[in-house]
């Protein structure tokens, strides 16, 4: 059933995203032509349109993520979704996975658009050269470049998931109030961020600096990097887990569709 839910979720978001992606890529290609021909005024207009579309893609990715969860689950459409013979977990996961995929695709399309406008043959050669150089210096310092690369991707995906789940939890917490749910969700977002910062602050102060220094000094450079990446990932995992549980509990016990 998760697959079927995701199919409709892809469709619902795709009908907004795909035309926008198309417009961005076409505008970038036309702008590339203006730049190549060095038409001053069209070049300026083209660049303005392309950059506005890039901003639009990013804003739409964020707003759609919020809106799909709110409108499809907590507004009237919720009557349909919550009476389907599917688990509530499947409802949340279908939204989460599809939103994450569209965000990643949005990022790729934006990079592609920039490449279309600005890239030359040299750009790719020099980019590959710098990447090679980067990995070479990493391995010289005793790091496995591939390992670090994979870890960074995992960290980014973990951050994306826990970020989306933060939004879901804020929206789900708005079930506590009958009216002004959007405002309340926004307030929750601020409160959660303050709480998160406070926890990190308390952790930072309560750590015994001497033993930490001793611990870090005993590690190799590789070990230090691994520890930092590992702790960041653990933090994302815990935060994401908490927000998921909050979302699920709210949907189970506090669901009250208008």
């Amino acid at each position, binding site marked *: 059933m998760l697959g079927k839910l995701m199919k*409709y979720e892809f469709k619902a978001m795709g009908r907004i995203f795909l035309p926008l992606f198309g417009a961005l890529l076409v505008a970038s290609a036309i702008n590339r032509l203006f730049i190549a021909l060095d038409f001053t005024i069209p070049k300026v207009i083209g660049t303005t349109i392309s950059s506005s579309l890039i901003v639009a893609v990013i804003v739409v990715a964020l707003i759609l993520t919020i809106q799909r969860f709110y409108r499809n689950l907590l507004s009237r*459409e919720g*009557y*349909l979704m919550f*009476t*389907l*013979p599917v688990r509530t977990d499947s409802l949340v996961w279908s939204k989460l996975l599809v939103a994450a995929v569209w965000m990643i695709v949005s990022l790729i399309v934006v990079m592609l658009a920039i490449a279309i406008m600005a890239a030359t043959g040299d750009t790719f050669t020099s980019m590959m050269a710098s990447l090679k150089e980067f990995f070479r210096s990493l391995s010289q310092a005793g790091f496995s470049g591939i390992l670090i690369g994979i870890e960074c991707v995992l960290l980014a995906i973990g951050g994306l998931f826990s970020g989306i789940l933060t939004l879901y939890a804020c929206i789900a917490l708005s079930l506590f109030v009958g009216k002004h749910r959007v405002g309340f969700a926004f307030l929750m977002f601020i409160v959660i961020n303050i709480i998160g910062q406070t926890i990190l602050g308390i952790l930072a102060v309560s750590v015994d600096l001497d033993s930490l220094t001793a611990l870090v000094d005993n590690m190799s450079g590789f070990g230090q990097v691994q520890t930092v990446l590992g702790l960041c990932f653990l933090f994302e995992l815990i935060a994401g887990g908490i927000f998921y549980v909050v979302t699920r509990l709210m949907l189970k016990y506090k669901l009250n569709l208008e």
Partner: protein
Amino acid sequence: MAIFECSGLTKTYGAKKALSNVNLSVEKGRIIGLLGPNGSGKSTLLKLCNGLLTPTAGTLTIGGSAPGIQTKQIVSYLPEHTYLADWMKVSDVLNFFSDFYKDFSVPKAEEMLTNLKIGKTEQLKTLSKGTKEKVQLILVMARQAQLYLLDEPIGGVDPAARDYILNTIIKNYNPEASVVISTHLIADIERVLDDVIFLKDGEVVLTSSVDDIREEKGVSVDALFREVFKC
């Protein structure tokens, strides 16, 4: 055997009691009117049956199970609101229902759409409120469910469509299934009902068969309703 049972069912919103100690049992093969004025708890009861709300106290079972995936497979629910996404076409929602409900019959839905002159290619956004309600009722009645829970199914449509809808309900449900219709438009639906449940301020004040009301009290359901709920 009862398809739906609840005992001591209570739902409160803060200090406000929406349902108070409701005990009911609905047999298979009956058409039941869930009757009461606005705010009497009809919608709350139906939402509880569909797992859209969690009871404050008491138990509720459908086909022997508490609301969950199993009960959602056998319950066909029509909420009082329009719940379809505006950007979808009528054909999209047919696909959606046949994807998720094994008991959904596409030919049956198509036949009803044709009878009510609703095109499959129409976008829901372009349909009037009444037509949207008809589409929803068609979707709900095109399932071969064991329990139909219809919340105000005739509230928003014209009297001619009302007749078609009521006939559709009687014609389409199988004799093993039960239909619960919540409404305050009693005169319109009285002729199709087997039993009635009167709800007042979240409490059940009467459960009876329609025949008993007519024979023992010598009045119509509509007349009895006006008497019980006299303001």
